[in-house]
């Protein structure tokens, strides 16, 4: 029973975390989709007129 509770908490916890992060990242749109998202520190911070 204890094993079931631990597994249940781990699985649902991880599932909730991945869904939350996915929706959050998806909403970021271009930065999350950018291949340089990990190494890039600019967050594409240009003023509107050049973007």
């Amino acid at each position, binding site marked *: 029973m204890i094993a079931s509770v631990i597994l249940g908490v781990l699985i649902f916890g991880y599932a909730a975390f991945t869904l939350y992060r*996915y929706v959050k990242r998806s909403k970021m749109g271009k930065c999350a989709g950018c291949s340089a998202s990990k190494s890039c520190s600019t967050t594409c911070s240009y003023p509107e007129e050049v*973007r």
Partner: protein
Amino acid sequence: MITIALAGNPNTGKTSLFNRLTGSYEYVGNWTGVTVEKKVGVLKKHGGQLVDLPGVYSLNPLSKDEGVATYSLLHDQFSAILNIVDASQLERNLYLTLQLLEYGKPLVIGLNMIDVAKARGIRIDAELLSKRLGCPVIPIVARSGAGCDDLTRKLAATVDEQNPFVIDYGQTLEEAICQFASMVPENQGLPPSRWLAIQLLEGNGVVRDLLVKHIPVSALNEWMENTEKRVQEETDFKSIVHYIRIARGRCIQSLLASSVTNEGSHGTTLTDRIDQIVTNKFLGLPIFLLFTYLIFKLTFDWLGTPLSDGLDEFITGPLSDTLSSWLHAAGATEFIEALILQGIVAGVGGVIVFVPQIFILFFLISFIEDSGYMARVAMVMDKIMESIGLNGKAFIPMIIGFGCNVPGIMAARTIEQPKERLLTIILTPLMSCSARLTVYSLFVGAFFKQNQALIVLSLYLMGIILALTLAKLFSSTILKQESSFFVIELPPYRIPQLRILLQSTWEKGKGFIRKAGTFIFGGSVVIWLLSYAGPGGMDVPMDESFLALIGGSIAPILAPIGFGNWQAGAALLTGFLAKEVVVSTMNIIYVAPDLPTLQGVMADFFTPLSAYSFLAFILLYVPCLATVAAIKKETGSVKWTWFSVVYALLIAYIISIVIYQGGLLLGFH
């Protein structure tokens, strides 16, 4: 810490060099406009940062991505600039080099593709060129890494300021430049006044925006008008922009005359001979279609399916059995066992089995990209797109969209015309991305065993043809526009290197595996829970679950297009989050122990005709969540974001109804 900007014309190998010097891997494509934002990496050998800027022909920006490069040069602090130059296209590339030299930052030139230049009979005296330009010129081959060590050493040593390169623009303009220098305030950290003056006269909007913060607009306008008038009066030139361009051109000609000898190419090259066939007016398109067909044949019939079947046997056999025995040993409850075996293993495993097919497809796409053929495809498509009044450049975001729609939409920034850009952003989601491939794989394996490649090819083509048709429709109605031009350079054909292919395949495909371990996992857990619980409590029959209720609510609308069951409805609703989830959902709701059984169960709910209608619907109906977010960010408009969702739904419904009802009329079932 030193920061070095990597600047150059489009398609000169900047990103290849960036990857080589920083040890990172960015998407490399041998066509223009792959890099649309600046990217920052850490230099491998000497520390410091390297910033990869989008390719530009000139510092005077025409499109959004070109604006990014100029803006970054003006506002970010760089210690030096690494200008990468295509040795085989020196004349055109030097135009940007001169502007960068005038800018006055320490500059090192990487003379890339020196091997291609040699093969074309172009001999460049790098030492003499270096002396004339007053900066180091290092011959390199970014792809193989030849000369790159030498380049890094020079970069580390060249951070001292150097005198700006001076082009003689003639007495009239030189006087005006002197006059301008007296207007520019000192100690404001501005670029050299000479450079500012010339860029301003050329109409550089980013420079003008910077200057109006320091100099009154009226003074700037007056100076510009006077200078323009004087140039028109004292020379034969009608415009000052033309005058400056000619002066630079003269300078380039003199540089070329002294340091380049052209021995001429040795007859027609192999590349020329291949191009005569593959870019032929009549043969180009059929050859492209043939290649695509072969790619799908390899992906589905010859290589991919046996591998996927093997993986499926492993997941549903040894893996499930082992997990099941572990769970028994640990004394797990029935709920947890069902969650893991029928939820996670079915949902995640159902998507993972298609990994071999996706990686084979990406490997083949990388092969045609790196061999140089993809650039020809863009050219062949340009001719077709021109005939419907669109720019061929729009096809590049679409090609990128075949991998994932999000970077495809970002790549639309290379398009100068705002309306054309908007049109491309809206239409790119019609390109069949790799996530949708999992759904195709599942269905063609079940219903079209004999013609898997053909069916998938037809879906990809359906996306392209619809995009072109809608482009014509939208551009002649709601998005009327002026036409713009498209320049594509054709790199010589080459045998791709296995290392680059494997790296590129992994980079394209790793996101898919990551997604399976994260989002697909989470999604599977929720979907399973919704199918396990219902208004009547837990462990209800599937038909009375919450998922059946939710899916059933839209099922009546789906009946006319051939799949009016709650299972299809639920799969489509969850598919909005990410299209692979459609496969996870089906694996969970059809509770099948393995792929062949699942495909058998599906035959109870779909006929071949309704399956094809379903596939068309999956291809076209609303873009996934990440794509919708990218559309919103890139268009900056809620209206157009909604438009892209609603028109996609409408088109999907219309096409599916035509397929299903038309098919029924023709006697298919």
